[in-house]
């Protein structure tokens, strides 16, 4: 297992380097640059050119890429063209915020979806199943921003129980930090729980008709043991894949919820940096997302082995 993880980690390096080339090229091929942002809408071309020169953006792309990669190799992500803050500080503040939100939403989604999915599969075509399916349809159909605003209206404006937005670092004030987390996490979590519930239900329905489940029942095992130990464990394999994918998607894709709740996450950071053409921030942010996404994939693969002993990491997946 250790050798497998090491090999997979080494394999990440060329993927990250390839991603860096793509991110760099795509960003520089898009019209506009930070010099235009700094100089403003009415700047004459000679002023924009002077600002561009000062920023070093008039140098050949290969030179700029080499310089950027060299700096990264030395652990220096550079400085934002717009704010002049070290990129490591910007990314270092935004990533934990997004991770906190994403993890909270995923935990909530799993807490909702596992029992709902299992119950719906056990009571297939019952009223309960219909209610669960209705919940998943609603969860998938309701836009995030709408649900977010609705929750703010109810819990912040009408009931005054929770803050309408902003993030307080829980390490600074745990109680207020958790309060600021509840509404955005619920907004994200409800939508994801709808996806997970459907997957759990479908996977369980397939597994419940397998021979080994029938055998377990025939052996007289209690229903709870049959469902939890035999059926659910196997059904979780495809669910873990979806959890991994959702985790990766949410890291950069929670931007709508981040905007509604003024949550200073990585999605908002990157979107704003793209608007300003703040190359160094976008590049570092996207590379960070690629790296985290690859790590999540690796963790997902490792989870498979725990859930299904037939999967041998070293042999089948290397």
């Amino acid at each position, binding site marked *: 297992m250790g050798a497998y993880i090491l090999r997979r980690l080494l394999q990440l390096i060329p993927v990250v380097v390839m991603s860096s080339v793509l991110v760099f090229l795509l960003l520089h091929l898009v019209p506009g640059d930070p010099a235009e942002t700094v100089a403003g809408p009415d700047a004459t071309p000679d*002023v*924009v050119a002077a600002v561009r020169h000062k920023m070093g953006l008039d140098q050949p792309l290969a030179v700029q890429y080499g310089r950027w990669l060299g700096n990264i190799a030395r652990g220096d992500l550079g400085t934002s063209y717009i704010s002049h*803050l070290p990129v490591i500080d910007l990314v270092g503040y935004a990533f934990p915020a997004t991770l906190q939100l994403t993890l909270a939403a995923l935990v909530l989604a799993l807490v909702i979806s596992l029992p709902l999915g299992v119950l719906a599969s056990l009571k297939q075509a019952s009223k309960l199943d219909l209610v669960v399916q209705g919940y998943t349809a609603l969860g998938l159909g309701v836009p995030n921003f709408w649900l977010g605003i609705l929750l703010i209206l109810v819990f912040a404006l009408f009931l005054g129980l929770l803050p309408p937005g902003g993030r307080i670092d829980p390490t600074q004030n745990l109680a207020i930090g958790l309060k600021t987390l509840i509404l955005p996490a619920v907004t994200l979590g409800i939508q994801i729980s709808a996806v997970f519930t459907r997957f759990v239900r479908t996977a369980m329905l397939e597994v419940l008709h397998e021979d080994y489940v029938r055998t377990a029942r025939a052996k007289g095992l209690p229903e709870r043991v049959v469902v939890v130990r035999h059926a659910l464990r196997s059904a979780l394999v495809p669910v873990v894949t979806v959890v991994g994918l959702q985790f990766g998607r949410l890291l950069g894709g929670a931007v709508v919820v981040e905007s509604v709740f003024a949550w200073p996450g990585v999605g908002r950071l990157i979107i704003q940096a793209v608007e300003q053409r703040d190359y160094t921030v976008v590049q570092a942010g996207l590379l960070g997302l690629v790296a985290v996404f690859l790590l999540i994939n690796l963790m997902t693969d490792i989870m498979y082995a725990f859930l299904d002993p037939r999967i041998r990491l070293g042999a089948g997946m290397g």
Partner: protein
Amino acid sequence: MGLGVPAVSGAQAVRKGGILRYAHGADVLNFDPAQLPAGNYAMLWTLYDTLIRFDPKYKATPQLAESWEFADGGKRLRMKLRKGVTFHSGRDFTAADVVFTLQRYQDKEVGAQFRTMSLYIKEAKAEDKHTVSFFMEKPNAAILDFFDSMFIVDKEAINDAKTKGVGTGPFRLVRWIPGDRVIWEKNKTYWKEGKPYIDGIEMLAIPDPSALAINIESGAVHIAERMPPTDLKRLQGNPTLDIIVGGIGNIWNVVLFNVKRPPFDNPKVRAAVDLAIDRQRFAQIYHAGFSKPACLPYPEFSPGYFADQASRCEFNLDKAKKLLNEAGISSLDVTMTIPSSDYSPGSDVLAQVMNADLKKIGINVKIETLAMAVARQKIVYAKDFQMAGHLYGRANKDPVTMFAGTTPFLTSCELNNTGYCSERFKKLVDEAAATLEPEKRKAIFREINELLLAEKFALPIAPNFLGFVKRKNVHGFAASLDGYGILEETWLA
């Protein structure tokens, strides 16, 4: 909140102390006052001071400059600076900082947004520690406009200007969490005695307009800046809130024609489109009635404004159709290029409003919406468009300032992005700049207006504004002429 000892300001008893929670729809991008992205508006007069400041009626009032006088027939401006003012760094503010700040605005590599205006000044000299003279090649009646926008920086702290801005303003920067909030504390040595009243500010970035509205409605914040007009309208009836419309006319919605290309090289076609724009409808839909449509490119308090000329455009589809026929055109396909709404708010609505009416006179409009950088390249630099919907700025002060710095109205043939080129236009604007007598200037502005109304290379539609909403318990808050929040006299009841 720890409210302090009551003081007296005007007729109302002022309560000192407390932390003001100020939310704005755009994030502070840095603390360099030479750059003016939307999110930086709130920090300008919080952190910095200017030499003079215009009041809402466009009257110059002393700030760091106590007094000023013109000499040498208007070619020299001498300012007496306030003594005993210190930067947040503890350094004394002197004339050398003023000279340095000006030179910084003039430096191409800084990319200052008001650089064009700063170039009116050929040289600045510190006569002594608290006297500075500005020398111009020729008189410029609009020169004070620049000093309302030149925020004085500490010349010895300039390397950190973007991240740690050091000014003389009423509040000092304590902490900046990009994308989240800026924490300010009261400048205890502020030169305006007894001010600011509040102990500090928490400035929050809330980009979602609905969330911004809920934050102010719920009382989570005291002031909300950059509230969209439709939300302003809705909140107008809320008894716990006050609506403040600031910066009216600083930015305008405009329709531009490329006068170098068919069909808009024909003045009759431009005039026909002008007649087919329902400005009133646009102002109602987009500005929710907070802004009035306009035919002249400046607001009512501008020296260039004349009521009779300002009402000289109309919405008349019959006349428009007739003009098109006179131009020998029965139907026409044109492309209207607009930047995305985050960069050019309202242009999308304007294009939709125009599209419906132009169809009625035989003009089919294809709306081309472009991202900010692409739009800027196409509309501003390459002049690669037929008709465009966009914004222009700096229209709320002297018209000369606008003609010097706003691309569709530039007198330079090379730089005007509509391609309009007229010796007469340039001569008139130069004359308006060099003439100091108000009455003579009025006559020149009337003539310029006639030219604009006749040539129609850029059609002003309606002035934009910055919508603020404050809680009733917030007093003394004001928006500057440009729409920047002024918090030095703000207090919480």
